[in-house]
């Protein structure tokens, strides 16, 4: 460092030689406002000249300035630039603040351009890095929930699962609606590579969305660009809004510049999000078996010559015999002759350990160490993060190692380079199976299970010493193979998956300052990863044994060449950019799997296949060349006008239609600079903004040329078929047009602030595969058609009710409402199917919001569900009634922050009003008699599972059909009365059988609307309590600061309308939302954090 100081001095000395006599010498010290430490390397220049210097090792500067110099400019990376009037002083000391502290200074906008926030004509919300790093989520996207108006997050409750992020609603009818993630100006892949089976709810693992590789510990700030005007410079990829992540760069730190941050979190399944089981009856479908009561299998197992009662193991429902401690029964684990428990009889009672025993305590360690520093020529930061997480299911673990390095180096005043590289390695074992699939243990726990099964016993006995599976669901008492379900412990320990992803992303940039107002930047960026996924089904499982391996290599390159200008002419400030972008991506994937089972048990290779292996390959190569320009003109810091334009040429559109241009214009008026308002002491800042933007979009890859699809060879005969999707060689670009207006203000000494936006956007000519009559020879074809509209309002308020020197209370409220409507689809088509899940479909329907749930509805009388003369629900004639809408009415987040001296308490409430969700768990869990509501007593005080008994006709038996009015029911009658009214509008009073499969709780006797629930919720999402130890305690140690905090996430669902699951449940990220199928419980997490700075 000494050498640098000497070198600097020489430079300064030389500067002295060339300066002329009419100068004055200015000196001073630059320190950090945060901790008072001096900052070397700060650029100090005389405004309006090229004269300048940098501070030395002790933060001191010495500058010869012209006699008429009036203002000095102090700038430093990561800190707010200051302009200071000289006012005749010769000694000027300056305190610099971190740039991210004062949100109304500078924000990062599209392409990484830093702009004064007041000049922006569009909505942009900025969050500090602590919003995602304080209470860490494995997928940092989840941490945005409730914190930004206009951003709707739906998280999967799977370990490392995907997070669906919608900004200002659905803009594409069938395409990608996820926000674009940009790190340091460079787009990062956020693909969801889950299989379509997974996203449709048919099973498979949720591998998450790729943006989750961004490490929360490395995030300096996040800016959410919501409207098209904000993101138009990114082009079509940003049509759904942008989440701009700025990573931490080196900063000067007092002390060594080393920070260690350690967090430990435990997680527990939230019982309020788990299916509630009845505890009165055991397994079976009804009295259909062999013993005299017909509720049990019946055979002499223990060899005493007397037939024994045996659990009807072949069934996966709980309409069985009532629990009775005096009934001695042979349970599933006493059926294997090789087991020591063989022939053991145990009472027929509810298990001591029900399925909730299956969930373990999750444990997660996150450790981060970063080294950073700054010197007179630049800065650097090196960071390493290790996250090791065990989920709440047995045998589940994710390990993630992230190494990142960023540096800036200024070779001369004009030439600088900066670069950043991040390497992320993710290794997972035992991700959770999802959807309607036996690999998802919740399919059984939530739908198909025998309530007599003790889970501790399942755990102790899932495999026999000779490697066979033992399960509660044997095909028969003498056929000891699973019929429908594997032992859930077998699923977790034998049929587990593993995966690995190695990813590099980063950029390198050269900046050259041509003149003081013109800078040339060349930047190239890569995002490259390979991932391998291995999925297993062991020999001895219910399904065919299998090994599937998927490899995927993703390679995306972006190069930008930009000319940036920034000039003030009299009262006008002009800045802007002209540039070009070259984008290329290659995605290559191969999937290989065994066919017909594994030959050698336990050998997981593709070649260990009974039948010839199945291999499929895909290679997607896409490119786009773009030119863009943006100019912003400001007048007197009072009025700003922005214009942008972008021209894209995309490889995915046919020649002739593949080039498209789109403009945006935005303006802002600083109201607080207006004549009358300028002097209003209560008003700190006021702004009105408006914009209009268009964004074009290209086609999904390879949608212009039809190809054949290939089947599995028959011996040596290859099989090809006409593809079921008809491609379209005449596609043209999609287009979105949007308007937005906003008003923001800060007043009463910054104790009250608001920001309100209204917007409307319409997307046209959408490129989508529409279903066609299959008699046309195809099931779908690509068309350019349709229009979708989003209108919305976003409101942010921040209030500081209390602010004293020791205590402050800050409230931030975000509230937003998006109204989405499908205006048109295609020719005569009024409905577009997104996915179907059993008897409901999720659709885009003309005149409705995107994502309506359709199925059979109740028949309503005076708004009440109506029952027929037999007492069962009447069902609408049409099978496609609209019975729900997945979009919420509004969302809100409320943050209360209390600061007392060194203690900070942060409490986030997250709320959704409206939105519907269809529950497959509830549909089956009720039908199988597993759920609590299917057992208990009826209005007469009798067991509802008992037969209906009529005064006039006696026991009606268990038959389906006519019920008995309460007035004719015998006093000992069982049965249930469904809530609703009779056709004449009077309350339903008809008792119907509800004691077995196929009766009152059966889905086929019910409209599908019976399983649609309101997805509103109010959640205590996040709480953190942080204590920064007094600096004085560490005076004689290398420790600069030490913060301890206790954190919690998803702590409490204060209200919801779904009995058996979390209303936020989703299958995956993507457009197939609004379906709960085998949803996992939500994990409540509690953590403890230590952050030490050296």
């Amino acid at each position: 460092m000494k050498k640098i100081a000497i070198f600097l001095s020489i430079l300064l000395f030389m500067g002295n030689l060339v300066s002329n006599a009419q100068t004055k010498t200015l000196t001073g010290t630059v320190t950090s406002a945060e901790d008072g430490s001096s900052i070397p390397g700060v650029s100090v220049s005389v405004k309006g000249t090229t004269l300048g210097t940098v501070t030395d090792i002790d933060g001191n500067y010495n500058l010869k300035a012209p006699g008429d110099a009036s203002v000095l400019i102090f700038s430093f990376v990561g800190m707010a630039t200051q302009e200071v009037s000289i006012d005749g002083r010769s000694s000027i000391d300056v305190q610099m603040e971190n740039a991210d502290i004062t949100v109304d200074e500078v924000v990062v906008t599209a392409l990484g351009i830093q702009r004064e926030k007041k000049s922006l004509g569009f909505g942009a919300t900025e969050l500090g890095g602590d919003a995602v790093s304080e209470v860490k989520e494995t997928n940092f996207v989840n941490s945005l929930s409730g914190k930004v108006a206009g951003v709707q997050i739906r998280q999967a409750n799977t370990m490392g699962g995907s997070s669906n992020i919608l900004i200002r609603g659905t803009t594409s009818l069938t395409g990608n609606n996820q926000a674009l993630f940009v790190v340091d100006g460079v787009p990062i892949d956020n693909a969801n590579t889950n299989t379509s089976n997974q996203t449709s709810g048919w099973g498979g693992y949720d591998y998450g969305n790729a943006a989750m590789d961004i490490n929360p510990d490395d995030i300096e700030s996040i800016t959410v660009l919501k409207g098209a005007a904000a993101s138009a410079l990114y082009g079509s990829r940003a049509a759904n809004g942008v989440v701009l992540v700025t990573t931490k760069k080196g900063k000067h730190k007092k002390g060594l510049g080393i920070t260690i941050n350690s967090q430990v979190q435990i997680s527990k399944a939230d019982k309020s999000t788990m299916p509630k089981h009845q505890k009165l009856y055991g397994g079976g479908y009804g009295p259909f078996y062999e013993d005299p009561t017909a509720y049990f299998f019946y055979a002499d197992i223990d060899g005493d010559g007397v037939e024994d009662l045996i659990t009807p193991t072949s069934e996966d429902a709980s309409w069985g015999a009532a629990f009775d401690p005096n009934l001695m029964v042979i349970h599933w684990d006493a059926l294997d002759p090789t087991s020591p428990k063989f022939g053991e009889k145990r009472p027929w009672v509810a298990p001591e350990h029900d399925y909730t025993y299956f969930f373990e305590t999750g444990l997660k360690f996150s450790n981060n160490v970063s080294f950073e520093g700054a010197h007179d020529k630049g800065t650097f930061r090196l960071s390493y993060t290790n996250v090791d997480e065990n989920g709440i299911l047995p045998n589940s673990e994710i390990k993630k190692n992230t190494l990142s390095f960023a540096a800036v180096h200024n070779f001369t005043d004009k030439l600088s380079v900066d670069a950043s590289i991040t390497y992320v390695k993710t290794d997972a074992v035992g991700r959770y199976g999802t959807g309607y699939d036996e690999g998802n243990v919740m399919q059984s726990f939530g739908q198909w299970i025998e309530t007599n099964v003790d889970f501790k016993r399942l755990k102790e006995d899932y495999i026999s010493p000779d490697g066979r599976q033992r399960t509660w669901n044997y095909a028969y008492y003498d056929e000891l193979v699973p019929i429908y379900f594997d032992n859930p412990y077998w699923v977790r320990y034998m049929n587990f998956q593993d995966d690995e992803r190695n990813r590099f992303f980063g950029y390198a940039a050269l900046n050259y300052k041509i003149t003081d107002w013109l800078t040339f930047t060349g930047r190239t960026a890569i995002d490259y990863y390979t991932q391998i996924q291995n999925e297993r089904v062991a020999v001895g499982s219910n399904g065919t044994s299998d090994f599937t391996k998927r490899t995927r290599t993703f390679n995306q390159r972006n190069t930008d060449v930009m000319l940036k200008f920034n000039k003030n002419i009299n009262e006008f400030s002009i800045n802007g950019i002209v540039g070009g972008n070259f984008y290329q991506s290659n995605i290559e994937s191969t999937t290989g799997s065994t066919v017909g089972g594994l030959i050698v048990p336990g050998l997981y290779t593709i070649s260990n296949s009974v039948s010839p292996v199945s291999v499929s390959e895909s290679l997607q190569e896409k490119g786009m060349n773009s030119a863009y320009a943006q100019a912003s003109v400001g007048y007197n810091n009072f009025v700003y006008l922005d214009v942008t334009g972008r021209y894209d040429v995309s490889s995915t559109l046919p020649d002739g239609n593949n080039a498209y241009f789109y403009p945006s214009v935005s303006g802002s008026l600083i109201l607080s600079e207006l004549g009358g308002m300028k002097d209003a002491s209560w008003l700190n800042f006021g702004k009105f903004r408006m914009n209009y933007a268009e964004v074009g979009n290209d086609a999904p890859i390879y949608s212009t040329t039809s190809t054949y699809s290939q089947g599995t060879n028959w011996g040596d005969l290859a099989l090809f078929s006409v593809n079921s999707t008809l491609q379209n060689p005449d596609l043209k670009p999609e287009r979105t047009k949007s308007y937005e207006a906003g008003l923001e203000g800060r007043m009463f000494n910054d104790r009250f602030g608001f920001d309100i936006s209204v917007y409307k956007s319409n997307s046209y000519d959408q490129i989508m595969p529409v279903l066609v009559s299959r008699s046309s020879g195809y099931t779908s074809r690509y068309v350019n058609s349709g229009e979708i509209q989003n209108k919305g309002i976003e409101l942010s308020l921040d209030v500081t009710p209390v602010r004293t020197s020791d205590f402050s209370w800050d409230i931030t409220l975000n509230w937003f409402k998006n109204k989405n409507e499908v205006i048109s689809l295609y020719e005569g088509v009024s409905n577009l199917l997104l996915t179907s899940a059993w008897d409901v479909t999720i659709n885009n329907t003309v005149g409705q919001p995107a994502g309506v749930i359709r199925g059979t509805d109740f028949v309503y009388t005076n708004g009440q569900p109506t029952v027929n003369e037999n007492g069962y629900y009447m069902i609408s004639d049409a099978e496609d009634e609209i019975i729900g809408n997945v979009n919420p009415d509004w969302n809100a987040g409320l943050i209360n922050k209390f600061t007392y001296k060194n203690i900070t308490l942060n409490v986030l409430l997250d709320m959704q009003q409206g939105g519907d969700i269809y529950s497959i768990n509830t549909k089956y869990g009720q039908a199988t008699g597993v759920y609590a509501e299917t057992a208990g007593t009826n209005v007469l005080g009798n067991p509802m599972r008992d037969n209906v008994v009529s005064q006039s006709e006696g026991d009606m038996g268990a038959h389906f059909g006519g019920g008995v009015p309460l007035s004719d029911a015998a006093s000992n009658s069982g049965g249930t009365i469904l809530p609703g009214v009779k056709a004449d509008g009077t309350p339903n009073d008809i008792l119907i059988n509800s004691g077995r499969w196929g009766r009152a709780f059966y889905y086929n006797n019910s409209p599908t609307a019976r399983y649609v629930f309101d997805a509103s919720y109010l959640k205590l999402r996040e709480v953190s309590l942080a204590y920064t130890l007094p600096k004085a305690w560490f005076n004689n140690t290398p420790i600069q600061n030490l913060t301890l905090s206790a954190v919690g996430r998803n702590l409490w669902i204060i209200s919801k309308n779904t009995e058996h699951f979390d209303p936020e449940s989703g299958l995956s990220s993507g457009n197939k939302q609004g379906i709960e199928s085998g949803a996992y419980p939500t994990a409540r997490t509690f953590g403890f954090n230590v952050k030490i700075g050296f």
Partner: protein
Amino acid sequence: MKSIKYISIALMLIFTIGITSCDLPDNQNPKAATEVPVNTLFTNALISFANQVNSSSVNSNPSRLLAQYWQETTYFDEARYNFQDRGISDSYSSAFYKDVIMDLKEAASIISATDATGSLAIENANKLAVMEVMSVYSFQCLVDAFGNIPYSEALMGSENSSPSYDDAATIYADLLSRISSAISSMDDSYGSFGSADILFGGDVASWKKFAASVKLRLGIRLADVDASAAKSAVESAYSAGVFEAGEGALFYYNGVVPHVNTIYSHFSVSNRKDWLPANTIVDKMNELGDPRIGKYFTQYEGEYIGAIYGLNGAQSYNNFSNFTDRFMAATFEADLLSYPEVAFILAEAAQRGWSVGGTAEDYFNSAVKASIVYWECTEAEADAYLAANAYDAANWKESIGVQKWIALYNQGVEAWAEWRRLDYPILNPPEDMTYADIPVRMPYPYDEEELNPDGYAAAVSAMGGDDMSIKLFWDKN
């Protein structure tokens, strides 16, 4: 300073060009074929065809339930005629249109576009005729399920995404004319698809008999609605040469997943037990003393017991007869059309006084005997059975209806059609339903109303509705 500027710009360009180029890729999928050998389309269509005719999937072919051969164990929705949950009509229609006929059409257009002369031209003509047989058969399956269907405007891809529906009787007439020209254009002294033909190994003579037998089936279906057309079709098919004893279109699976029999696929590959023999057929065979019962079903506690058809409750797989090992074999054949069916049609034709070279009783006996022998019982057993259950000319619809139904046990689609036409055997209405609730038609695909609204509306209006109770034009009683 100037030099630094140039150096930096040069550096920038180097690393720009080094990593990204501005040439755009061509948007042609390098991993998918844009041209394929025509045989690959044919073989694929043939497999799809056999699969769909033979399928027992609850998602795409409920015919074994409709004919009441089988009952479902625990999940009995389809046996109680709920076809909506799984979009069964959609899959049934899609399997024929898209997976069979479209590939045949594509193959035919490739063949027609090739210049060939001499023997190659004759082979090409044979290939086109062979594919006509499968197309005609498939369209008949579609008409027999739905009634009026898209036909003349079907399979036109982007030219017509919402084809109009044609009248079912008109389609039948056209199918008869198409199958007739296919028969006449086959030259069995030349080959066709060779080893790509996994049904007949490229043997055109066999295809010709199959074609004539398909024509026979088309013809007899019209017996009650257009007797003269039926007579002429049946007689001309007969004289063209139909399947004889021991012959048939039997499609043997190669036994390698996924090319396995549907029952093996369900019980062994999917490892499930959702099916039981229905009491309807088990009771009837018990009653008639049918020797095939032990070939079709296993015993439960020394007896043949079928599950109650259409019960609104679960029935345990372990408490009833099950299926014999023959059905459980991976290679077990799909029966597309074979001699017993031909002989039953000829028996009916003779009974109706048409000229088919034999008497009704002879053909009836020959049909029953051929089926019994096919199921590996002895001729003596067949004779004894026929002695006990002799042909009853006075009640020929019942005699033929019941015996044909038993013989068509492995051909659910045809069995359901012939039950509707002959009105025998007497089936069992599911619990809480009436006889009239047993479907005589499949509802149109559920999304057709949405995707092809004009065509659908016109068809529903022409048919008098879209219910399962709407009788087809050939279903006259």
